């Protein structure tokens, strides 16, 4: 994962609407946005960012790129991502919501053989507070620090960052893997990245009902993660099947037992893995402080 301010960033689905505004916000935050892609606007410049019709055209001018961020129509996201992979871009963040899951299945088959990291879809992307913004995070809420946040939602991530900031705990990285049934990167991948990240001293994992990725994460934390992890699961009181549009909760669990995917199952998994659980966002700062004090910044 290349997350330094120097790394070059492309914006696909770049247009006069939201995406060029977000690109300007990213640039203002210090992100090295080198070009935007829009077939109909090749040759133009928007918000001081040169626009190209094709990814390969942009790379011919700006050189190799580390990360591309995909905005625009969710039905065109697969094509945009495949275009980026064909141009040897190996970090892709998909912002747009509404991408059909079978498009993601196709993309993942391709991403796995090319060792491409996909973050999203339906994700605000990644923020390294004070350094780089790759996506649509509400950057004003974050402060630089040592707590890594990995979650499946956007505004709930901001809520947690806000609580940490207000308690004097800055953040090292904030990332949402996306709220869809099928996402590119997983909790496991991000736990590993945060475990290896030198700035991060504690990790907050934010889950919700649906799928089995929190359960898998709990097992992985017990086995492989040295840094302290705090878990928080939203949706304990939500009736089963009510998901307010987060299709992650629709995940098929046929043949995997009836309880998989409920908040209760996830909480039980973290309990078994001896991961401290916050009952509410406001509890997170104190649990982080306790864990940091106890662990002294990492088990040996």
């Amino acid at each position, binding site marked *: 994962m290349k997350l330094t301010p120097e790394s070059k960033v492309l914006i696909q689905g770049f247009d006069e609407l939201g995406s060029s505004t977000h690109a300007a916000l990213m640039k203002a935050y210090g992100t090295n946005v080198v070009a935007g892609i829009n077939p109909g606007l090749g040759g133009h410049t928007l918000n001081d960012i040169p626009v190209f019709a094709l990814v390969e055209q942009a790379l011919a001018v700006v050189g190799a790129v580390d990360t591309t961020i995909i905005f625009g129509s969710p039905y065109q996201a697969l094509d945009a991502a495949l275009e980026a992979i064909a141009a040897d871009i190996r970090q892709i963040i998909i912002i747009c919501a509404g991408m059909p899951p079978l498009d993601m299945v196709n993309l993942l088959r391709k991403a796995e053989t090319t060792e491409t990291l996909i973050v999203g879809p339906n994700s605000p992307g990644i923020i390294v507070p004070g350094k780089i913004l790759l996506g649509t995070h509400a950057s004003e809420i974050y402060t630089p620090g040592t707590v890594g946040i990995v979650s499946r939602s956007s505004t709930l991530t901001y809520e947690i960052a806000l609580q940490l900031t207000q308690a004097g705990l800055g953040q090292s990285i904030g990332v949402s893997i996306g709220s869809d049934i099928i996402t590119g990167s997983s909790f496991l991948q991000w736990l590993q990245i945060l475990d290896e990240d030198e700035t991060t001293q504690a990790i907050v994992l934010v889950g919700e009902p649906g799928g089995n990725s929190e359960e898998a994460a709990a097992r992985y934390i017990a086995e492989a993660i040295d840094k302290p992890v705090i878990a928080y699961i939203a949706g304990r009181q939500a009736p089963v099947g009510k998901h307010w549009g*987060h299709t992650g909760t629709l995940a098929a669990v046929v043949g995997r037992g009836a309880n998989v995917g409920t908040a209760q199952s996830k909480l039980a998994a973290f309990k078994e893995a001896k991961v401290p659980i916050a009952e509410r966002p406001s509890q997170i700062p104190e649990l982080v402080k306790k864990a940091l004090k106890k662990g002294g910044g990492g088990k040996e």
Partner: protein
Amino acid sequence: MDLLEYQAKEWFREMGIPVLPSQRIDRPSDLKGLKIPYPVVLKSQVRTGGRGRAGGVKFVENTIDAIAAAQTIFHLSILGELPEVLLAETKYDADREFYLAVVLDAAARRPLLLGSFQGGIDVESAPELLQQVVVEQEFSPFYARRLSLKMGLQGTLIQSVSSIVEKMYQLFVQKDLDLVEINPLGVSSSGKLMALDGKVTVNDRAIARHPDIALMAEKKASRANSRYPAGMLGTWEEVAAGNVGILGNGAGLVMTTLDLVTDAGSKAATCLNLGHGRNLNPLPLAFGDRLKQGLEFLSQNKSIQVVLINIVGSIFTPGEIAEVIANFVQHQEEHPSVSKMRHAYPRLVVRLAGTDLELAKERLAAVQVLLVENLDEAVEQTVRLAKVPAKR
């Protein structure tokens, strides 16, 4: 979107999956023009399960019995759902019954082929009978053969069942499905296969790129005749018989707010997710308009006494959000006729976070609405107001 059995079977027929001769019945008198020979099975076309046990499936031998049975089934509500059509189908005697499905699996992040030698089962209750094959790479028929063999099939059944699984997979991909299920798949004594019941769920996100399915969705929505079509406001869910409304931006934040309110001893009636407000996908309404209409929508629910508004990190600043809320409150006060069905609109508790909080506080204070910065405090305030005997 779930299809009805007869719609699923039309797709099966197009794909070459064997189905019985059948006819759609819109009203009992249609049975006079029945083109398939008796004995016939009449089946209520509802989306809920357990229709057989509920009396929604009847065997009939002649027109008189058929019309009587159809009248009964048309008036039989199954788990609250009345059928709009019935399906009349040739009776079939299966020697054995299998189970087949293709489903999208979140854990494997791939489609999953499912099959059982024992069809007609409730798969959730007997997962041990269910065989699975993950379609790791692009589908090829050998994945279907893997399933057939895992199911314990032998001889020519391996190829014939595999070939049906192949067609189900094609349908799954062609129509962007979450699920296609044949349960049961009838097997005659001579080894002939027949899809006796079928279930198809189209992925909601993909509907718009299939003109034929979009048309089906439109018809379904126009029957439901909702004032707020899907996606207009965001997403809302009726939660419980409570007196609190929750309005937030983002599903995770709404769920957290619901947890906090419930833990503090109140019950929510409706939770509304406006979308996180940084969403760049074209929605029918801009964020401010969704907020205004969302407030109206929750106000119309007479059981809701307090609405907790929790908005964090939207592109709209707290000042802009406060302006929308204040305008709504003023409009309600100035036009009591708008809400003549009720004595009063619900009390509002507003929790915002962002840059121009002071401005927001002032604007809301002007209409006697309290802005609470801290989420826990906002929840406490909401629960306190919800316990006050209703003025409405």
